[in-house]
């Protein structure tokens, strides 16, 4: 029975994440349009796109890995969602969050992109492989400040589990955003790379690489990738909220906090032109890593 409830909770979480993620994507497009002095698409445009893609026919595939690539991607995002506690009191969605910890999370987050990369690789499209290597290179870049921030939190509160960190946050009463500001800054800067919005979108540069890893994926493949991306967005934002913004007790607060966080990379991206890969990597190893280092020093001192 408990298992059944768990599974049910997982499904509900997934649906919520899907809807919220899709909406955020639409809002992103809307906000971008408004910033560019356009009317922009409606906020539900992403839903339309997704359903259209799902109803598009798919007549060809390039082999088994290409076929299953999006499934790998989905595993990664759904697992991330399952491990991140959605609400602080755990009442609604009792997921798997007590079964994993941050290191597991970091690794499961890379599972999907790599599986997808194999799928793209099998298509034989050189653009796909080039995009993948760019993405992986960029990942090496942003993982450094991201891990630094996480480690700073871990060593300060002597736990590697997300729950443990959230409890510590609840006990101190201060959000880590304020008590560990450097870690927060480093993590946020790393998040720019994680979302691959504007300055770091060379991975799928549409005009240069023909959308990179996804260049051979249309129809249902793209639909699954898109949903996975939405779920992943939500999961990552929730993780940030849990770690730095004191978590959220109910859905409105969660939405508020996640959306506030979501605005940061979007707004940064709108004002910044695209970096080349090595520029992006060096950017991440510059100030973000410096803040990460400060965070670790702060954690060691405290």
């Amino acid at each position, binding site marked *: 029975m408990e298992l059944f409830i768990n599974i049910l909770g997982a499904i509900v979480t997934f649906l919520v994440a899907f809807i919220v993620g899709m909406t955020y994507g639409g809002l992103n497009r809307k906000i971008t349009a408004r910033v560019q002095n356009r009317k922009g*698409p409606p906020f539900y445009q992403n839903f339309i796109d997704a359903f259209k893609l799902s109803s598009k026919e*798919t007549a060809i595939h390039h082999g088994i890995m290409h076929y299953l690539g999006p499934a790998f991607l989905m595993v990664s995002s759904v697992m991330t969602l399952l491990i991140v506690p959605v609400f602080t009191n755990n009442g609604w969605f009792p997921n798997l969050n007590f079964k994993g910890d941050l290191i597991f999370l970091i690794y499961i987050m890379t599972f999907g992109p790599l599986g997808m990369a194999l799928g793209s690789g099998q298509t034989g499209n050189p653009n796909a492989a080039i995009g993948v290597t760019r993405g992986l290179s960029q990942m090496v870049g942003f993982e450094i400040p991201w891990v630094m921030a996480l480690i700073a939190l871990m060593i300060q509160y002597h736990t590697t589990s997300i729950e443990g960190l959230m409890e510590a946050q609840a006990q101190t009463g201060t959000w880590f955003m304020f008590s560990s500001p450097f870690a927060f800054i480093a993590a946020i800067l790393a998040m720019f790379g994680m979302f691959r919005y504007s300055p770091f979108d060379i991975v799928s540069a549409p005009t240069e690489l023909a*959308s990179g890893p996804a260049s051979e994926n249309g129809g249902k493949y793209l639909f699954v990738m898109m949903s996975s991306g939405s779920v992943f967005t939500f999961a990552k934002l929730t993780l940030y909220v849990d770690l730095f913004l004191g978590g959220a007790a109910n859905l409105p607060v969660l939405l508020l906090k996640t959306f506030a966080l979501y605005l940061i990379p979007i707004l940064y991206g709108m004002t910044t032109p695209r970096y080349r890969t090595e520029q992006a990597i060096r950017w991440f190893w510059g100030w973000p890593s410096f803040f990460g280092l400060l965070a670790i020093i702060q954690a060691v001192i405290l």
Partner: protein
Amino acid sequence: MYNDKNSQKIVDYIQNWTRKHSIWVLAYGTGCGAIEIPPTMTSRYDSERLGIRGAATPRQADVLLITGYLTVKTLKRVIRVYEQMQDPKYVIGFGSCTINGGMYFDSYNTIKVLDKYLPVDVYINGCMPRPEAVIQGFVKLQKRIGEGRATGAKHYKENLEWYRANQKKIIPNWVMPEYNW
């Protein structure tokens, strides 16, 4: 339930509605027409408000937008791109060159009538058509999609031999992979 006619209608309606409001355009920028696409997409005319956005590869695209004259050499590529697109797919001919050759009416290597070679759903005339006209063309296409009348691809599939004969007439050295989508 799937075979139920009414529900099929509803499904079709929803599908057509989403297709109508989400048009991903693969702009095949031949000739001078390509210059009209940026203003159509960007702030002033903002086609994205209608759900029209660019797609990078034929696999993801819904609409093949042919912006201007097509030489024989380019036609070969365009046919290839069109056949790589996934159903449902539409073609928009753009500018008078695609309609009757335009100013290239007596050119030795430019096709004059696009719809003999590809199933054009909507023509936008003008030399060049301004972005307003382009958007109107898109709206027209949306309307046809919504009504389920944009069946160019189906027509192409059904009359493949005729199209193929026309194509092969001017492309004697036909080395392309056979029809696939």
